[in-house]
Structure formats: structure tokens, C-alpha cells
């Protein structure tokens, strides 16, 4: 197995793990952690699969760079809303989650 493929498999594991955490947790911080872990998993999958047996590929790497910035922007936005929500409600999880 190539390094690339191996880390693609790690990506699969992270996706599964992240999804589990995302659904199972109530606390919004934890859900965001899970979201970021799942995101990392998908990045590994993207680069790992694309490069497996074919050498470095700048395209998925660039996509991941874009993805990382988007992830940090989303996380930051979520944290801003979370802080505000905590401020007005005193809660750190959503009421009666669906």
C-alpha cells in the first residue's frame, strides 16, 4: 500500500469518527471539533486517493488549501454565533436537538 492510499484510509476512519462525534454530542464546541476532524478526513481522502500511484498532484493540494481556509472561516463564524448564543441564553448546546 502506498503512503497516499494509507492516509486515504486514515481519512475514511476520520470521516466516520467525525460523523459519529458530530451526531452524538450536544455541546456545540464538541460538534465543531467533530466537524473539523471530519473535514480533515475528507481532505486526506481527496489528496490521498488522487495521488495514489500517480505522484504529487497540485490540483487537490490547492483544493485542500482552499478547503482549510473555508473550514477556519466556518468554524470562526460558528464560534461567533456560539458566543452570542451563550451570552443571551446561558447555554452551550442547542435546545432539544433534532
Amino acid at each position, binding site marked *: 500500500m502506498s*503512503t497516499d492510499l*494509507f492516509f486515504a484510509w486514515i481519512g475514511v476512519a*476520520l470521516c466516520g469518527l467525525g460523523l459519529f462525534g458530530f451526531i452524538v454530542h450536544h455541546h456545540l464546541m464538541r460538534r465543531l471539533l467533530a466537524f473539523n476532524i471530519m473535514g480533515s478526513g475528507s481532505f486526506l481522502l481527496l489528496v490521498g486517493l488522487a495521488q495514489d500511484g500517480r505522484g*504529487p498532484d497540485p490540483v487537490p493540494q490547492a483544493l485542500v488549501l482552499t478547503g482549510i481556509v473555508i473550514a477556519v472561516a466556518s468554524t470562526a463564524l460558528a*464560534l461567533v454565533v456560539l458566543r452570542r448564543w451563550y451570552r443571551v441564553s446561558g447555554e452551550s448546546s442547542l435546545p432539544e436537538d433534532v
Partner: protein
Amino acid sequence: MGWLDLLLGLTLVTTAGLALASRDLFRAVVMFIVFGLLMALVWVRLQAPDIALAEAAIGAGLTGVLLLDTLGYLKRRFEPTGTNERRPTPTTEGRGDAR
């Protein structure tokens, strides 16, 4: 793929698991930052130095600081500010709105 990769990969998954499973939120966030740094190493192994740099700086660094920052905020106590009618009402189906 060598032993190093195997070790790195397993550690990565373990850290992720710890970040998700820790009872203490602070520990979870720290684990997440460690996870980010390990990810940077993984990117090096995947011949992606650009991502490694970005992951270290943004993924682990800034996201970590943001999370810690918010964590500090969540430790503080506030009086809930909404008046009674403004209290967060359950907005999910079957409750609150049902007549």
C-alpha cells in the same frame, strides 16, 4: 509506506478519538490542536508542504487559539439576558408552535 507512516496514522486517529471523547473540554481542544499538528506532519508525508504550512498555521494554530478563546468565554457566567418571552423557545416541531 513505512512504520513511521503507520505510527503517524494510528496516532492521528487516536488523537482524533481523544479530542472527541475527552470529558474535559479543555483537554479535548488541546487534543484537537495536537491533531492539527500531526495533520501537518501527514501533509509533509503526502508531499504537500504548502498544506503542511497552512495546516500548522491555520488549522492547528489559529483554529486552536479561536477554540481556546471561546472556551475561556464559555467559562464565564452570564445572567441569561432574554426576558421570559425572549427565552430560547424550543423551535422544533411539535413543540412551541403547536396550537
